[in-house]
């Protein structure tokens, strides 16, 4: 138990380090992007020198680089992620507004994909008929060959919710990983021994194969979360769903780096947290 708590503490520390490094990288991207600190309001001849100084101070151009980084980090700690350039609204507010849509869609999409991929891979491993094997490989092969943006268009055309699109994008990759992991476990000597002793196929699958494949399957959780968040951008952008993916796309088109880097940092921390969770579950296994 103590060992597990210390491992968990290590993972939390790693997550904190990732947050700090990510915040510094985000600040660097914003600070050194071409056009940083240039504001068209400065061109207004009606503005006084004091007003222009105030505009420049909004970008923290007065101090040096260190003060810029310190200001950025202290802002982050106080929940101030800056202001979106093109929406002219606080980034924190936008994230609070949009994150629930994406997180819900990703959660539902991942759940659907995991259930479908698990059922499909268990069926192919349990029965091992060439018809099942080839049809599953053909369907997933075709789905893998479709760009995510095309899946998004299909979802839009068929009027299906975004989470189903996320499920369609992640399902083929998940199926392939799960199928390989289960097939490897199924080919191990103790499974052969169990079959030789006349143990039923269902019992072999649920009592021997799945427990043996459990750890690598749990490790897939983090990878699948990362895939699902990546798929959310084109799916939300093209189906006009008001989530973080659409916001990131709009921010990219408008070169709104404060918004874009904050979204990227937020999603990175979310996926890293899922990875840590998967790691902690793995550690708990005997």
């Amino acid at each position, binding site marked *: 138990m103590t060992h597990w708590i210390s491992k968990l503490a290590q993972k939390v520390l790693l997550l904190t380090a990732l947050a700090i490094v990510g915040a510094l990288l985000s600040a660097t991207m914003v600070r050194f992007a071409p056009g940083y600190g240039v504001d068209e309001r400065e061109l207004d001849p009606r503005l006084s020198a004091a007003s222009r100084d105030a505009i420049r101070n909004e970008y923290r151009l007065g101090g040096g680089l260190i003060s810029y980084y310190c200001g950025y980090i202290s802002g982050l700690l106080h929940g101030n992620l800056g202001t979106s350039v093109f929406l002219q609204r606080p980034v924190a507010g936008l994230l609070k507004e949009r994150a629930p849509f994406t997180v819900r869609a990703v959660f539902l999409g991942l759940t659907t994909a995991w259930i479908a991929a698990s059922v499909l891979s268990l069926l192919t491993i349990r029965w091992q008929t060439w018809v099942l094997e080839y049809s599953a490989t053909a369907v997933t092969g075709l789905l893998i060959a479709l760009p995510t943006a095309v899946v998004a268009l299909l979802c839009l055309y068929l009027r299906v919710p975004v989470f189903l699109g996320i499920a369609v994008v992640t399902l083929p990759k998940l199926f392939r990983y799960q199928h390989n992991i289960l097939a490897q476990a199924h080919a191990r000597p103790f499974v052969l021994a169990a079959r030789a002793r006349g143990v039923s196929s269902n019992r072999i699958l649920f009592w021997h194969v799945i427990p043996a494949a459990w750890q690598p399957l749990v490790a897939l959780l983090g990878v699948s979360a990362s895939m699902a968040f990546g798929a959310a951008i084109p799916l939300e952008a093209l189906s006009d769903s008001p989530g973080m993916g659409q916001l990131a796309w709009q921010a990219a088109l408008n070169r709104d780096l404060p918004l874009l880097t904050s979204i990227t940092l937020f999603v*990175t921390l979310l996926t890293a947290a899922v990875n840590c969770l998967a790691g902690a579950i793995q550690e708990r296994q005997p």
Partner: protein
Amino acid sequence: MKGQRILRLICRGALVIILTLGLFAGSFTGYSYAHQFREIPNSAPSRTHWLGTDGLGRDLFTRVIYGTRVSLLLAPAAALLATILAAILGGLAGLRGGWLEKIILASADLSMSLPLLFVLIALRALLPLDVSPVLSVVATFVTLGVLGWPSSLRVVWAAARNLRDSDHILLARALGCRQSQILFRQVIPCLRPVFLAQFWISIPVFILMEATLSMLGLGVMEPLPSWGNLLHGAEDFSAMAANPYRLVPLFVLVLTVICFQFVFSGSEELP
């Protein structure tokens, strides 16, 4: 087994045809990909325009085959960059071991957990959107190559680590061979199949990523065609239903990716 071999042969043939069309695009069409026939926008296929024209009156067949050149030449370039990075870092981690191995593997794990598309568009957004088409192509594929190394690194690292403990490397060390000799005469030739496998596997991944980025307007810029930006605007379903031949780029893209999957499906088992 025989069926698989025949299928692989067919896929290889299809890839050769598609690549030839892209490489010698100028020989298959008399038009430029940017030339506009303003009097016949959105025209149906005809003897002069095999796939018709797009909304700006540009010959669609010409744009598809020039788009093939862009997608099929630059995805391998990105794959090469990613493989080189993976080879250097994975080789170093596997052969050196110790703290260097830990740092490289931790950074690879970290990069693999990043949502790639978010990072890609964040990096792409650093460039202005109105860059020249050629610069947009280079930027897109360099970004893909630079961010695409972590998945290959794990494979290279595992192969390099096995090699580090192998008898012939031990023998070479015992005979007093220099590090550089061991690297160039023993290690790199042994790892070549792994590098090649990772290179071929990465190509369809980068083709798909470019397509998604370009469809979102963040990849290859007009008037330069690529499979992705030829599908830009496909959300206008009524226009697509009226001119279904506009889906030809999607068909070529899917066919290419499936062919790559079939031809190189056994590549990861090469070493």
